[in-house]
């Protein structure tokens, strides 16, 4: 069939028209062999523009389409859809970006025009070698994997299950409830933690749509949104493969390990506890049945609570330490009314509706607040000495019976490994990183994997629940039962004739999409898992790995024309 390439230059309103001499571009490319038509249009992405393109493809019987306009990120899909509507395979299309890469960045109109001409010529040269690729449709799996059964994981599971979704709730501990399970009361209303948590746990256990897998960990995740294949291993060996469409990561936090900071005397000076340990002491099923006791069995007469332990080392504020420190003071005051409680803080962080009042209420119970820096804990006369630098800069010492360290939050142990398994990113602090701080707070860089609760960063229970609900909502809205998914068709393939089995491609594949066929001793691409990043094609020295839409020929001709 005779080649009929249509070239359409978009004016993009004034964006391109004012910066690129479109007439010159058209003149330069219209006589190229195979170009049947070269025209301009004021806004190709508009409804009229799309109609114009569709009619032109049909009218001229175009075999290939080149559009010179904006970035492919913006409208490649738009124009591919136009091709499809006009009966032209959407992969026989090439978009030349003459807006971001020419019009917007080059002051001189002549230079911008010259560059645009090269880009359009390159696109024409490349599009000739495009191969019509066929789209595929696969079923999407509406089931969901939730990793971590703390408050966030539980909340997400319950919400998903309420819409008849099958949820696999994986928890590495033997019981569920996460960190909150160890709390006695919750700030600011000081209600019982178990009163809030137990009904939720019961709902999870009784819900037929939730399959709870305790003492289990995720070992592998392959696939993509709508079609993940997850391997979960139960402690002691048993391995299970699950098929899910989406994943919620709610792996929570752990307490910062203060033993690395000798100035706090932790582990060396008696009656120095971390907030977590003190919390357990207050819990009715804790080691002291809820009684606050010193090591010698007496009740403390004075207690210091040290804020911001680990903030400098971690490089972030853990957001809830000030608030839980107030809570710990309230525990003390309600159990030992005459106890003297002193909070050593550097900045008080009390954001949000109810917390200022909570602070004043706590202060009103006779809790002292001392602004201090350079806090050091040592063995004191008949107790624990808190050495600190006061607001005026003087070095002071005060003795207490007990010291509680309000430690920072850090990501739960194993987060790095999990990030690797799930192929999602972590920030410098080690927490899983959201797709966008404001616009995608519970999404990740990988479609279909969401984060909720402290796995994403330090936060309180209410915010964790908000995130869990958001993640569940995202999944319910996007992963609709019966909806078909279209996997990427611009993927890689490996030629059996060329492959020598060096496995270089396997080592560079970011999606675990290449396996080694031991029998034939060659690498094989799983087309459903492949995302078409092209790493393997670039790394393969033999040219055995090939990207279907970035073939050597396509790139070669595109480059030759750009550089000519």
């Amino acid at each position, binding site marked *: 069939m005779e080649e009929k390439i249509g070239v359409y230059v978009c004016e993009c309103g004034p964006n391109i028209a004012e910066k690129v001499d479109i007439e010159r571009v058209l003149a330069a490319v219209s006589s190229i062999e195979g170009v049947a038509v070269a025209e301009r249009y004021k806004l190709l992405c508009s409804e009229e523009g799309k109609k114009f393109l569709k009619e032109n493809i049909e009218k001229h019987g175009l075999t290939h389409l080149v559009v010179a306009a904006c970035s492919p990120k913006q409208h490649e899909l738009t124009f591919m859809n136009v091709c499809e509507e006009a009966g032209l395979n959407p992969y026989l299309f090439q978009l030349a970006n003459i807006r971001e890469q020419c019009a917007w960045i080059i002051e001189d109109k002549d230079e911008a025009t010259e560059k645009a001409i090269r880009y359009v010529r390159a696109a024409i040269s490349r599009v000739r070698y495009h191969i019509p690729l066929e789209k595929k449709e696969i079923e999407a799996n509406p089931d969901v994997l939730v990793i971590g059964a703390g408050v966030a994981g539980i909340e997400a599971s319950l919400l998903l299950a309420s819409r008849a979704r099958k949820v696999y709730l994986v928890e590495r501990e033997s019981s569920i409830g996460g960190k909150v399970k160890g709390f006695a009361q919750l700030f600011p209303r000081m209600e019982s933690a178990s009163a809030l948590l137990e009904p939720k746990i019961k709902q999870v256990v009784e819900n037929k749509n939730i399959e709870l897998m305790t003492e289990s960990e995720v070992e592998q995740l392959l696939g993509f949104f709508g079609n993940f294949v997850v391997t979960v291993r139960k402690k002691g060996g048993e391995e299970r493969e699950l098929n899910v469409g989406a994943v919620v990561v709610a792996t929570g936090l752990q307490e910062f390990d203060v033993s690395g900071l000798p100035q706090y005397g932790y582990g060396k000076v008696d009656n120095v506890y971390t907030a977590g340990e003190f919390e357990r002491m207050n819990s009715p099923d804790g080691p002291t049945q809820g009684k606050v006791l010193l090591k010698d069995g007496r009740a403390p007469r004075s207690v210091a609570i040290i804020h911001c332990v680990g903030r400098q080392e971690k490089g972030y504020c853990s957001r809830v330490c000030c608030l839980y420190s107030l809570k710990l003071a309230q525990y003390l005051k309600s159990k030992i009314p005459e106890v003297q409680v002193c909070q050593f803080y550097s900045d008080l962080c009390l954001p949000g509706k109810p917390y200022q009042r909570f602070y004043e209420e706590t202060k009103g119970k006779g809790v002292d607040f001392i602004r201090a820096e350079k806090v050091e804990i040592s063995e004191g006369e008949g107790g624990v000495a808190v050495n600190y630098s006061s607001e005026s800069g003087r070095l002071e010492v005060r003795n207490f019976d007990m010291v509680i360290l309000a430690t920072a939050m850090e990501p739960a142990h194993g987060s790095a490994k999990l990030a690797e398994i799930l192929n999602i990113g972590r920030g410098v602090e080690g927490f899983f990183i959201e797709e966008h701080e404001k616009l995608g707070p519970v999404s990740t860089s990988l479609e279909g994997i969401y984060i909720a609760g402290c796995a994403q960063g330090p936060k309180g229970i209410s915010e964790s629940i908000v995130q869990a609900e958001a993640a569940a909502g995202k999944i319910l809205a996007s992963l609709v039962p019966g909806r078909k998914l279209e996997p990427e068709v611009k993927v890689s393939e490996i030629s059996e004739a060329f492959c020598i089995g060096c496995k270089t491609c396997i080592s560079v594949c970011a999606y675990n999409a290449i396996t080694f066929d031991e029998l034939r001793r060659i690498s094989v691409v799983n087309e459903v898992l492949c995302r078409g990043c092209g790493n393997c094609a670039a790394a393969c020295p033999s*040219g055995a790995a090939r990207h279907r839409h970035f073939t050597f020929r396509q790139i070669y001709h595109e480059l030759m024309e750009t550089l000519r």
Partner: protein
Amino acid sequence: MSDPKKEGEGLKGAAFSGGKSSLETVLGFLKRTLAEGCFDALLLPVKAPGGDSFPYVLVQDKALLEDRGSPLPPIMPVQGGKAVSSLTRRGKAPRKVAALMRPCEVRATIELFKLAQVDLENIFLISIDCPGVLPVKDFAADPEKGMAAFGEVLEKWGDRKVRPVCQICHRFTAPLSDDGAGMVVDLHIGLLGIEDGEVLLIPYSPAGEEILAKLDLVPAAGGDILSAWRDRANELTKKRGEERRRAQEEMKSKVRGLNNLLETFDKCINCHNCMRVCPVCYCRLCYFDSEAVKHPPDDYLRRAGDWGSIRFLPDTILFQVGRMSHMSLSCVSCGTCEDACPMDIPVAQVFSLVADEAQEYFGYLPGRSTDEPIPLATYKEEELEEVEDAPQGASSETKEKDG
């Protein structure tokens, strides 16, 4: 195969003698390993019946080993890495095989192992001090003269008669540092600085130690022979390093820039022999032999139109540069490419120059370790910063060095 010795254990060596010459002693040692059942077969160069070549042969017959085994042949008609790959590419050797090779061949073997072209299980690697080899063409022209010439080479330990890349080789022996790190090998045979008839057996892995123990050889740390070998090897390494730098600077001035590069490879007849003999060119079909680089006539006409003319066969320089980019990080400067060039292009001298710089850039040394990934298939985030921050063509490391 196992990793090099742990740091601080120090090098140990066992003296071994019994032959009239050192090479005869090596044969005697190898014979004993077969007799004691240390190995089921040996892979080593064997003199061809006509006396004009030295192919690798898998030997089980002690008489053949004694008659024609050549632990240090005068030429390298086949790179040992390629021989080990031919033996084990389809799977591990079912019984124990010791492969005796020159250090550059051992390094190539390790590179091929990383590229899944060699299976090291049941393969025991032995390296030997190497004085270099003669150009294969010189030897083939007159083998008798070649044998005499190589005798001189062995005596003087390095000579202008060996190939140019051998003259500037600074990795002709096993690692000399106490931790033994720098090359993966099980046992090294030291010849340098040792009296004729005697050799030094230096284990570099637990497997190497086991073999010596099996033969009732007790390697000792320190000792006169070990320090004599080490001193001589150190001295020569230093000297060769200087010569290498000098020769490479000279070569650089000859090949730098596109025009010089084109001129250097002008004679190329596109036979691709260099690629065929290269141990680390392991592709089933070279990309440059494939249909992917054959274009329709209008394409060539267009190119001729653009540039005024186009040379046929096309892509001669593209092949050279392409091959360079594919293999230079694993290049062991063995020189077989240059031996194989019918047009006497200094292929190995150019390639090893590029290889040295590329390897230095990535802090990579081929053959150093079995688990050090080949740089182009790995990604380190800090490398991106390095490229961003460093002036063109310099890594931050070299930048620091240059002050």
